[in-house]
């Protein structure tokens, strides 16, 4: 096992452990702090998967901005220890059952390697994944000349310009909606 794989499993264990603690803590503040920890672990995984810019905005936007909003609301409502924070037992059976079923279905994806994906997409027998998926290799190479931000910015402002502008309208709608909902009297 090389170093990258070892570090990958370290961050994975960190993320899964934090996520489990996040859903089992009674105190909402403790849950939120464990979720921040899981998000930091995910940022580490993003760096290992060659997405340095996404890792940076994961820390800044998610762990920084969104979780501060959550903590702010928890503290505003003064939610401390709740006496019974759980659903009844039949929710437990249903919830854990659905989660285990979903996990076993999805963990089958563990078997996916670039070679197997290429086999399924292409009709040739045992093709080279680099030839079947040329975009990934080309854009990783482009990242070395343009920098990791440039590689994300170019398609964002060319091919995805309209969705990008719609996103800004969405944020405006969210701001107005939040103000209208949270204000006592307009």
């Amino acid at each position: 096992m090389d170093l990258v794989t070892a570090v990958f499993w370290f961050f994975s264990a960190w993320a899964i452990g934090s996520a489990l603690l996040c859903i089992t803590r009674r105190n909402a503040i403790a849950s939120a702090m464990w979720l921040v920890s899981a998000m930091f672990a995910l940022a580490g995984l993003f760096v290992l998967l060659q997405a340095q810019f996404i890792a940076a905005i994961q820390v800044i936007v998610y762990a920084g901005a969104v979780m501060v909003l959550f903590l702010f609301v928890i503290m505003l409502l003064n939610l401390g220890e709740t006496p019974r924070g759980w659903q009844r037992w039949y929710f437990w059976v249903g919830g854990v059952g659905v989660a285990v079923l979903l996990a076993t279905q999805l963990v089958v994806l563990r078997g996916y390697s670039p070679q197997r994906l290429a086999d399924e997409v292409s009709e040739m027998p045992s093709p080279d994944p680099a030839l079947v998926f040329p975009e990934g290799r080309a854009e990783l190479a482009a990242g070395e000349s343009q920098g990791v931000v440039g590689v994300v910015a170019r398609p964002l402002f060319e091919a995805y310009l309209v969705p990008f502008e719609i996103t800004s309208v969405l944020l405006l709608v969210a701001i107005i909606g939040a103000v209208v909902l949270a204000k006592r009297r307009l």
Partner: protein
Amino acid sequence: MLIGESLAVSAVLFSIGVAGVLVRRNAIVVFMCVELMLNAVNLSFVALSQLHGMSGQIMVFFVMTVAAAEAAVGLAIILAIYRHTQSVDLKSINLLKG
């Protein structure tokens, strides 16, 4: 490239999020579990973007924006509900129950 491994980790995180949504009664914790599920999906987008090009990372960018908007509106709704019922317990939100 660690694609299969990332997809498996993403699956486990998503399932933990689903379990949290179904099991917890605190509305804010349920909301945080939804954020966890969004994060798990982001992980699979990033993993597959190594193979399919930058579109995956741009999708992650949009998912993050939508998650931020959703958090703002959702927490405002929770605040409004708290003013009504003095609680964020999902059991106490039963206005539509016949």
